[in-house]
């Protein structure tokens, strides 16, 4: 199924949870922050949160900055 991640279409397996998606993307589950359809998902809900087709996600983390 297609989902929109950080403004680009990506494919994810049906009924994937956030933890699966992040691992699949090679992202650090502990340090990223996820906004799913405009709502920030607490870290403790990553494993129980399922992705649906056409969901919109922002996946962000801290980078160097002044």
């Amino acid at each position: 199924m297609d989902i929109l991640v950080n403004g680009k279409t990506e494919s994810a397996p049906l009924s994937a949870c956030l933890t699966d998606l992040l691992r699949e993307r090679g992202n650090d589950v502990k340090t990223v922050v996820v906004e799913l359809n405009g709502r920030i998902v607490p870290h403790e809900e990553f494993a129980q949160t399922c992705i649906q087709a056409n969901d919109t996600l922002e996946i962000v983390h801290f980078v160097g900055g002044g």
Partner: protein
Amino acid sequence: MSADIPFILGGIPLQSRLFLGTGKFGADSLIPAVAEASGAEVITVAMRRVNKNGQGITAHIPSNIRLLPNTSGARTAEEALRLARLARAAGCGTWVKIEVISDTRYLLPDGYETAKAVELLVKEGITALPYINPDLYVARACAEAGAAAVMPLAAPIGTNRGLRTKEMIAILIEEIDLPIVVDAGFGRPSQVCEAMEMGAAACLVNTAIASAGEPVRMAAAFKRAVEAGRQAWLAGAGAVRARQDGAEASSPLTGFLQ
């Protein structure tokens, strides 16, 4: 000689008055050594989208250091609020440096949107540290909205041009009843020293250290400059004599050899 009092910011006592930015280092792996040499207890970071296999900076920041995420990329107060919420959700505390900028050439902060952002963030329990032009009215609006400090610029971001706004910063130090953390544009240690001599509460340095030939050595130099300026402020500088009044001998004017 009495010891200096700690710098209390957002209710937290800080020993170091040098804040460190983490942008533009040749490699993020330099940051632990730079952080240690700087003595900084507060370090800024930015929040950005994660690419596939993208690694963030968190792993390179010593765990005893307080993170100060910025809202860079925000052009409006609402965008700053969204970034601040995301930053808080990262679980690294509730301090946020508010940066609201829509000017892409000089990267000057939008005072109106910044003051609005302070109001929105403070309502959500965030310790708001706004990056501002050194403008008295903007600083007052931020103070009234509940900012924990204001962060006026010395010069445009990333320019290494030094304390170009000296007169305006001096007015903020005199008039605003909040810590003044001078941010952006510093190029050399002597410049942060001057800001601290004037009574700034702290200085934030990034590019000057990141772009130095030896960033770790430069971080140590900035640490000492901030400390020297702070000590000079506490000591109280002597009066300046007008040029037309000539010199005033330091040595006695009596007892000369014949």
